[in-house]
């Protein structure tokens, strides 16, 4: 990749799908769903690196897509119909549900969502009440319509949700779901997430949605750092650990049962383990030295981490209880931040300072086939995409004294080492973490330059759709595996 310029030839013309509105849809309604799923399967979650043919080196801005060639499905999300307006909880809970459902679908990255101002006035609560032709016609022009009814009675919230194909007059129903839960804000959000995930699963190529996933992160306060958790959309932020020290690098296990992290104690930083089932820290033996940056293997059996127990910080692998540890790397210089290939579990990407400034490397889990991926600058914090094809990482390509430079997020295709830049001019970016569907990346952004201004931001994997999930004071996000 010599220098700072991509020397590859243009692969495809720039697509401006994310910016443009939906083109005229002259497909056959009956075949629409199957066709879209087939297309999505063929191309979904593969970042097509689409390079402009002109002048790449000059500005380093180029367009990427999450599903090139497939039009986003235009979906209308009706406010649900209130069933029992008598209960005072109905109105606020329905508002929460409506807002959450709309937000989940709008942020899914696979829809062209119809603005609520373009929807028909009526809120259909059941299949018999919907005039599909009206929803399919301009200005709504929806291909899919999500609607339903929600009511609260006797402390229970009951919702029935439907997804209809607006162009299929004969058999429009794609999905029908019923939910019944305790009537509170949290459950109103949860059932909206579940319904959204059902829709995304049906229309998004059979890949489960992420509306029910969690993000674990670090919250700074009073000189300490504790581990916190939140829903994928930033709601429900709550503290997990109460250790009163500096804890960093939370990594959730693939089965969501344990958090591995590194915590400062009398003997320096050590790997620690917190059980979300027992709600307390559980034993993880330490064997001396500084122990950092744990990473779970995709089967949850092994943990790779950086340890200086033999002197120099190297990558080690232990089983998830801390036993059977063995060293994987052996080269002078810091080795840190390992991450397994989540698809195969047989490769590790990590950061090594063996040649000076930290660079991104990959190797097999037995330490063989070491390959350097970056050609310079200061690269840190790798995250491997769920399909195993891409590495997201933080990179300051002009790092050095007197060159403050920007640390931005990049995605590299492992097979070709070709990369694209995801963030531009928003301040320091670090700690990218892929969502389980591979369509999103959450990361830490420091807009003010000072550590205290760091917050957690999520975006689509092509760098669009950026939104803040937390206030300042949050760092090191880690997206759950499911």
């Amino acid at each position: 990749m010599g220098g700072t310029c991509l020397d590859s030839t243009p692969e495809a013309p720039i697509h401006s799908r994310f910016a443009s509105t939906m083109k005229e849809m002259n497909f056959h309604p009956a075949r629409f769903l199957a066709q879209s799923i087939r297309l999505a399967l063929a191309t979904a979650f593969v970042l097509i690196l689409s390079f402009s043919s002109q002048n790449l080196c000059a500005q380093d801005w180029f367009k990427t897509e999450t599903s090139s060639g497939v039009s986003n499905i235009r979906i209308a999300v009706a406010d649900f119909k209130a069933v029992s307006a008598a209960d005072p909880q109905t109105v606020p809970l329905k508002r929460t549900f409506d807002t959450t459902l709309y937000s989940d679908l709008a942020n899914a990255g696979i829809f062209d969502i119809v603005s609520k101002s373009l929807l028909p006035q009526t809120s259909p609560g059941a299949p018999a009440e919907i005039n599909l032709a009206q929803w399919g016609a301009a200005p709504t022009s929806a291909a899919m319509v999500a609607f339903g009814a929600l009511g609260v009675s006797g402390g229970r919230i009951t919702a029935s949700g439907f997804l209809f194909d607006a162009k299929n007059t004969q058999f429009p129903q794609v999905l029908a779901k019923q939910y019944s839960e305790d009537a509170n804000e949290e459950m109103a959000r949860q059932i909206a997430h579940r319904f959204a995930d059902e829709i995304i699963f049906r229309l998004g190529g059979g890949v489960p949605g992420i509306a029910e996933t969690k993000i674990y992160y670090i919250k700074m306060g009073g000189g300490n750092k504790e581990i916190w958790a939140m829903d994928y959309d930033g709601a429900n932020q709550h503290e997990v650990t109460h250790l009163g020290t500096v804890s960093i690098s939370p990594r959730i296990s693939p089965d969501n049962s344990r958090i591995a992290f590194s915590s400062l104690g009398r003997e320096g930083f050590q790997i620690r383990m917190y059980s979300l089932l027992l709600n307390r820290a559980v034993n993880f033996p330490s064997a001396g030295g500084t122990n950092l940056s744990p990473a779970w293997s995709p089967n949850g059996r092994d943990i790779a981490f950086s340890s200086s127990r033999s002197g120099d910080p190297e990558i080690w692998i232990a089983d998830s209880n801390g036993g059977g540890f063995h060293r994987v790397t052996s080269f002078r210089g810091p080795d840190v931040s390992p991450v397994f290939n989540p698809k195969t579990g047989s490769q590790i990407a990590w950061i090594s300072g063996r040649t000076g400034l930290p660079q991104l490397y990959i190797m097999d889990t037995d330490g063989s086939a070491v390959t350097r991926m970056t050609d310079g600058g200061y690269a840190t914090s790798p995250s491997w995409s769920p399909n195993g094809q891409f590495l997201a990482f933080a990179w300051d390509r002009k790092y050095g004294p007197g060159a403050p430079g920007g640390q931005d997020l990049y995605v590299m295709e492992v097979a070709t080492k070709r990369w694209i830049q995801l963030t531009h001019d928003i301040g320091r970016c670090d700690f990218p973490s892929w969502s389980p569907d591979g369509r999103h990346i959450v990361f830490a952004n420091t807009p003010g330059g000072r550590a205290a201004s760091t917050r957690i931001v999520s975006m689509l994997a092509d760098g669009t759709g950026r939104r803040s999930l937390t206030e300042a004071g949050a760092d090191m996000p880690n997206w759950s595996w499911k």
Partner: protein
Amino acid sequence: MNVSQARYRRAFAIAAVAVALSAVTGCHKKDKAVDPSTLGPMPAATAAPTATLTADPAAVDLGQSVVLNWRTQNASVVTIDGIGEVPANGTQTVSPSSSTNFHLTAKGDGGTTEANVRVTVRVPVAPTVPTDTGDMGSEAAFHQNVQDIFFDYDSYDLRPDAQTNAQTAATYLNAHSAIKLVIGGYCDERGSAEYNLALGENRANSAKTALVTAGVAASRIRVISYGKEKQFCTEQNESCWQQNRRAQFSMDR
């Protein structure tokens, strides 16, 4: 004291006379003779003094003040040791330099009553032993001879000035073999947190290696990396970053 003793005797005499009178004038109780040890005579006219003494708070740090509060009854003279004669009821703020028992004596026609309260003063234990304690050497001498080592950015190699520092430190440490030390590895705020912790480990290890090479036993040295988690200086300029890029020595206690 003589005055109050005289008063006491007088009061006692009056009381004795009163008792004797009541006996003579036909009290039918079979009172024994007065037992002086009990201070038993309880003439209605002269009740014994009562006294209470409290301190708030009961425990303070050195330099803080305590409010003493006392209440007495039937006392004509109230004294507190170390303060002197005080009103029958009152408060006073005191700042004792060490833990003190405040002793109040209330004397009245009915006798003498005492009250005590203890104020605990927490005198901070000096974090360093200022005197030279044999082989350990003093904290000041330690820092004079064992100086922090600073590093170039993103480097854990010892610079020439650091080599000199390490030699001086090793000489001192070899002469004071009882000293154990902790080397903390620190980085400036730039760069990524996880990598900086590994780099800080390498910095502290470099310093340790230099000392070990110069003859200091490795078992005396403990290494902890703080990366950029504990910033020494928080401004965003090179001089501040340089202060943060260091291996810091401290005595391991």
